[in-house]
């Protein structure tokens, strides 16, 4: 049995605002029976003030899904639409005294249903399925936009968290690469916007940062991170500087590293000398990657390319 807070249990066993709202001004329906979670949120809106005067829900799902739905209605009644749209899934979870990590997708469902209901009231077209961007997880009908929102709103930095908050990748697993790419891209944007510590950002293939160690300062304080809005030329300059700083150490080991190209957050390098075919080449590349991320102030992926490319 999951460890549910007293408030989650209270809102599950005695849900408030359950049922239908016959004269609803807006209806938002998200989820599907195949996914194991579905929520129909009905709101009544005062057209003058755009204030939500009543809300009801119908939920197919587990205890935390029902509690989250009920909590959502409690939170939004009395708020204007604009105020309600500022509510995040974390607000729903907080209202309930927290949810188990594996159940956070229930709060995300509430957040999505609210957006759908408001869109419906405003006469906007809302489609639950791949409304924004590509449909990534076909098993659970999760599109790119929903993953981006979940990552941003909750500061997600790992695939496990994305699965807990959205269910994406939780079934056949064929969408893992696509979801990884969205997580990486969104984290990179968050770093650039100053919303995320670069050391926490998800980078495909990178070794996860060990909690508690990422704050440790290096003996020699590195230069301050470069501006997040660097041009490509500025990025190249910083990369060249970093490689130049690392070059003596590489040459001492009989190797070297040259910059080949930069595309977005991907840095193509050519390893030469003893670094070619070295059993520790991967470690060297990771070291370069970590130093570049630190100096650029954004996650980067260092990709060794063969000679001639």
């Amino acid at each position, binding site marked *: 049995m999951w460890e549910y807070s007293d408030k989650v249990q209270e809102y599950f*066993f005695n849900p408030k605002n359950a049922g239908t709202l016959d004269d609803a001004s807006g209806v938002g329906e998200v989820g599907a029976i195949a996914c194991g979670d*579905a929520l129909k949120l009905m709101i009544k809106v005062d057209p003058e003030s755009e204030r939500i005067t009543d809300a009801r829900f*119908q*939920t197919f*799902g*587990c205890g935390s899904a*029902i509690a989250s739905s009920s909590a959502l209605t409690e939170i939004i009644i009395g708020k204007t639409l604009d105020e309600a749209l500022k509510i995040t899934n974390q607000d729903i979870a907080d209202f309930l005294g927290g949810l188990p990590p594996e159940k956070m997708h229930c709060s995300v469902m509430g957040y999505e249903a609210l957006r759908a209901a408001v869109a419906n009231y405003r006469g906007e077209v809302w489609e639950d399925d791949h409304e924004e961007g590509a449909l990534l997880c076909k098993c*659970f009908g999760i599109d790119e936009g929903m993953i981006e929102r979940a990552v941003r709103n909750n500061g997600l930095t790992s695939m496990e968290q994305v699965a807990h908050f959205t269910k994406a990748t939780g079934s056949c697993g064929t969408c893992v690469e696509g979801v990884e790419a969205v997580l990486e891209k969104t984290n990179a944007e968050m770093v650039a916007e100053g919303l995320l510590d670069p050391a926490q950002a998800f980078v495909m293939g990178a070794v996860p940062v060990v909690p508690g160690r990422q704050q440790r300062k290096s003996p020699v304080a590195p230069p301050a991170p470069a501006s997040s809005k660097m041009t490509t030329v500025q990025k190249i300059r910083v990369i060249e500087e970093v490689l130049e700083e690392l070059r003596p150490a590489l040459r001492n080991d009989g190797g070297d590293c040259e910059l080949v190209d930069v595309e977005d957050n991907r840095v193509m390098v050519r390893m030469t000398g003893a670094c070619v075919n070295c059993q520790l080449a991967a470690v060297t590349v990771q070291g370069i990657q970590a130093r570049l991320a630190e100096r650029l102030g954004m996650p980067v992926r260092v990709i060794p390319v063969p000679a001639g490319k």
Partner: protein
Amino acid sequence: MKAVYLDNNATTRVDPAAVAAMLPFFTEQFGNASSMHAFGSEVGGAVLKGRRQLQALLGAQFDHEIVFTGGGTESDNTAILSALETQGARNEIVTSAVEHPAVLALCAWLEKSRGIKVHYIGVDARGRLDVEAYRKALSPRTAIASIMWANNETGTIFPVEMLAELAHEAGALFHTDAVQAVGKIPMNLKETAIDMLSLSGHKLHAPKGIGALYVRRGVRLRPLIRGGHQERGRRAGTENAPGIVALGVAAELAQQHIEDENTRVRAMRDRLEQGLLQRIGNSFVAGDVDNRLPNTANVAFEYIEGEAILLLMNKAGIAASSGSACTSGSLEPSHVLRAMKVPYTAAHGAIRFSFSRENTDEDVDHVLEVMPSIIAKLREMSPFWDGKNAGQSGFAPTYA
């Protein structure tokens, strides 16, 4: 509040007689069963007694065909990995899509890490194995066929005696995960072609952490756990003497109660099932209703989700299980119900009620009293339930 435990396929209460029998082996009879002195030999004698009690329950020909292990999962792993080592160039496995994760997760790992080819045989809407597909999958490349005796979620019984013979015709070993079947239906292994059988103590009123692997005499075994020479070199590690003693007593009690299991317990199960179906529309029994374990009822309630049902049942003092994703921590509902092609409208809301000889008619009465209101309450909140679909279930598998 009345407490009703109907989750015996998950685990059972240790029988007080088994507890009483094992207690001295923590205190005055603490010796190591493998020691030469008197302290050890007394314990060694108790271990032998436990082995013979289990032998009797299984109908094994020799007591040394019983290898004590840490439980069902270890037994399953030992059987399959051993077969891959002893069967020469044969490197394929035939199993079913509805096995316990103790088999399925191992097979998936063997596919990924060793390139072993695994044939997953499907089931029909009743959960019955596709025997023709099983027959076709067997070949000179098959090292072992591993098919459960009875399914843990639906109770559906597989024809393992016949499946073992088919495996032998292909020159393959046959193993069965009988964790749910042992003690619930009569067995006489010496009359079958089954080479290996796994069981777990805590499913038949013995403690957790003790199990056994039956290995037919003559079947080569490569131990999973290596070290000392315990269990004739087939499972290293100091014998869990208290557990073995308790398992022996539990086996003897199971043998004594097997008729009760198949008459009184079966009748309670059937009364519960029929009562639920009469009182609650849009529900059906998942599994092979004609050929099941006598203690297991899997009832699917459409348009609602299993965890929510379990939470309300728990509040009413009733313990059962659900194959819903939200209960298990995974995101997909039961792989067994999905293999049976039970629609999502019902697979998420399937509840497994599993009895033991300790249950009573009053337990059934209590469940029948509270379940209708629980299901009704959740359906009132379900966006897929509008009352119009009340009545017969939309799932109508052909039971040809």
